[in-house]
């Protein structure tokens, strides 16, 4: 029985989120999340590679021998990453230069290889593509949230330099949230990435905890009907 689309959605966006739960692809996640535009650029590129690679891997899953599957998958991913790299070079050259090494490094992003091996190689192309989309969205969402938070705390503004990704009309998208802000340099420096990611993981765990508590609080009504009779000890 194959996995339902609903389950794929929940897994990718929340329950098995690559950024917050699997903690895969930390290098680009921490390295490029110093501003919203960088984060968004890398999120889109990674998601695109993820969708295409999942589809391609799923298509060849019957042909590739298990013994050589990993090199084969890496070849597919590397080819797709090269495509994305050339596309970015053609259309968003400045962003391509800012992101630098992190674009070719999409090849080694563990999220992509992980999904190829764990999901795409065992499911049909439609599900694999949808899983790629959901995992890409989950990873991208975390990336963009960290990027936005770091930009906000670091510079006091949001969405600066969006023209790098969306063309000249986006040049005035910048929102200055705090005027007369000193600039909290730590948020933009590497430690800021670790701290913000840690706090996001803590927040997710806290939300999960309270959801579990709420689910537990609803349960006793059912449990009360099937109480077992105690035969030893004191019956309360």
């Amino acid at each position: 029985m194959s996995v339902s689309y609903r389950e794929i959605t929940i897994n990718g966006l929340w329950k098995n989120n690559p950024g917050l739960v699997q903690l895969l692809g930390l290098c680009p996640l921490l390295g490029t999340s110093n501003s919203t535009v960088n984060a968004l650029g890398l999120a889109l590129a990674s998601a695109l590679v993820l969708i295409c690679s999942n589809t391609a891997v799923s298509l060849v899953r019957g042909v590739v021998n298990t013994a050589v599957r990993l090199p084969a998958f890496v070849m597919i991913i590397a080819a797709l990453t090269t495509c994305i790299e050339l596309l970015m070079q053609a259309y968003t050259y400045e962003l391509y230069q800012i992101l630098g090494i992190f674009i070719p490094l999409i090849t080694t992003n563990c999220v992509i290889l992980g999904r190829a091996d764990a999901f795409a190689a065992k499911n049909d192309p439609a599900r694999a593509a949808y899983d790629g989309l959901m995992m890409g969205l989950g990873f991208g969402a975390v990336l963009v949230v960290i990027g936005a938070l770091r930009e906000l705390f670091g510079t006091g503004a949001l969405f600066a330099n969006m023209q790098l990704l969306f063309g000249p009309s986006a040049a005035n998208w910048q929102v200055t949230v705090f005027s007369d802000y000193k600039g909290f340099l730590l948020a933009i420096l590497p430690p800021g990435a670790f701290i913000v990611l840690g706090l996001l993981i803590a927040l997710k765990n806290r939300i999960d905890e309270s959801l579990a508590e709420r689910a537990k609080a609803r349960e006793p009504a059912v449990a009360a009907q099937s109480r077992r009779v105690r035969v030893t000890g004191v019956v309360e």
Partner: protein
Amino acid sequence: MALPRITSPHAKGNNRTQQVMLQVLLATVPGILALTWLYGFGTLINLLWACLCAIGFEALILALRKRPLGFFLKDYSAVVTAVLLALALPPYSPWWLTLVAVGFAIVLGKQLYGGLGQNPFNPAMIGYVVVLVSFPVEMTTWPAPHMTGPLSALQHIFGFANLPDGWVQATALDTLKINKSLTVDELWTQNPAFGYIGGAGSEVVNLGFLLGGLYLLRKRLFTWHAPVGMLAALAIMSLIFWNGSGSDSHGSPLFHLLSGATMLGAFFIVTDPVSGATSNLGRLIFGAGVGILVYVIRAWGGYPDGIAFGVLLMNLAAPTIDYYTRPRTYGHRKPTRGFKLGE
């Protein structure tokens, strides 16, 4: 007749956390007096504000962690962190700077690791480094020795008035670092405020902290190993690389011992029992490591003073130091140290 039923041990020591923390606070008094005498009421207001922030953050996180508030607030550990941090900050640093520093120290440096006794790094130094890295301009504006009343100090710190021009002055460590052409003697004649040795009266402050440190040593709150290790290493390093009083000089040993935050670091930061090494030999090595790092950063690094970075780097090394300096256990001829094959 009702006899008091108290279980052993019956010996009463003064080594409870609260007592220790109070002694440390008492020992900072000479240093605080020296700072206040030099820079006016800014230091005192900074201290009060930092303590308020620390108690606030500590109470907030304790409440979030569902820990008893009164029990943990009464051990004064948050206050000690705040005081040590505030003493390291410039006397007229703006209120938000202190708030951010104390917040990072208490919340990230201490409570998120599990509270008192669980922190791998010295919380005060974490807070200091966070603001030093983030706000370099505010953190390097030390005023020239100056007397202000409490009211104008309040105004400066809470942002109703800017610091007057000519107040701000580079410290001696700063000047010595930037200096390329003048000999040390020329530098000192150019800046009369540098005083005799340590620069900008900081030898008085350092002597104040030395006094407090000796008091703590006498009270046996810590052993001599860590501070002596640090001061000796710093002195030896600066003696080796002294290079006379030419323009490429890094300053004399006496200058390094009595300027910047040397004494505050040696007696109040390096002696932290939680984040430092635990055995006597380990403490000696730990202190020496801090001393060497402090000199390396002062002489060739990117920052004028290096106590905070030195301490944090050595905190990282403390578990390894402990691992290799385990003392001999009773009944064994040799101590078991380090990694052994086949273990």
